[in-house]
């Protein structure tokens, strides 16, 4: 079933703030095996001019994807989430995410396409901090694979 094209351009309300913690950043850096001290040592982060430890570049996806999940779960959209795979991912950074940030995500459906039975949806997540400063934008392309015949 084709997705409802009228959802293109639709924005969703900002998410509740997510508070970025030092230990969560450490846990993520350890999980990807990255020993860069800028993720765990505030002094190392300050040496690069950061106010506190910063998060690895893809860390913010955990927050934006949760916000995107609220979009794809919108019953009006009609997406079969059990068939969804991650197609593309892109980030544009104004500044790195850092410990102490309280981040909100505003998601917008940028495009909906149908290709060879697959439904493709592009979602943009704008991430802002508590002061309203833009931190990063995440673009996520999700592909709902065509249902098998029969």
């Amino acid at each position: 079933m084709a997705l409802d094209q009228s959802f293109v351009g639709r924005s969703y309300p900002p998410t509740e703030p997510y508070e970025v913690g030092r230990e969560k950043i450490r846990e993520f850096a350890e999980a990807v095996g990255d020993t860069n001290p800028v993720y765990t040592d505030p002094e190392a982060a300050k040496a690069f001019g950061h106010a506190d430890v910063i998060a690895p570049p893809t860390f913010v996806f955990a927050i934006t994807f949760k916000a995107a999940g609220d979009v794809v779960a919108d019953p009006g959209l009609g997406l079969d989430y059990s068939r969804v795979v991650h197609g593309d991912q892109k980030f544009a950074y104004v500044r790195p995410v850092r410990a102490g940030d309280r981040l909100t995500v505003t998601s917008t459906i940028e495009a909906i396409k149908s290709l060879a039975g697959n439904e493709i949806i592009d979602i943009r997540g704008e991430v802002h901090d508590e002061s309203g400063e833009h931190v990063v934008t995440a673009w996520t392309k999700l592909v709902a694979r065509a249902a098998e015949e029969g």
Partner: protein
Amino acid sequence: MTANSVNGSAKISYADVEVGTELPAQTFPVTRATLVQYAGASGDFNPIHWNEKFAVEVGLPDVIAHGMFTMAEAIRVVTDWVGDPGAVVEYGVRFTRPVVVPNDGQGATIEVSGKVGAKLDDNTVRVDLLAMCAGQKVLGMSRAVVRLG
């Protein structure tokens, strides 16, 4: 390690790189334990990343790595090169092929290389990354824009 990395300034200078400059390549091992740890850290508990039975049922050859795990590893070639991960301005990938992680005690290995694809304005360069696993490209259009000193 160059001397100027000690005081926190960028390791690599814009003037010192050219289109075609290669970044040091790295290999990243990934086992089932890695995926369980990444699931916990990232909050992505999709069973295709830890449950073989489930993965096979949905048509996959075996458990596969999180695409975002591979994306996180690939950018390390860039962040280790420049020193400050905060210098990354843009980063995007296409997930073209899954990284299959067998439960054989060895798992898989992701090999990442990168080279400067273009010199851009404002002391930034575009790095084109190549991520391979078992002889196949696992990321497409994998590019980062990074600010150099």
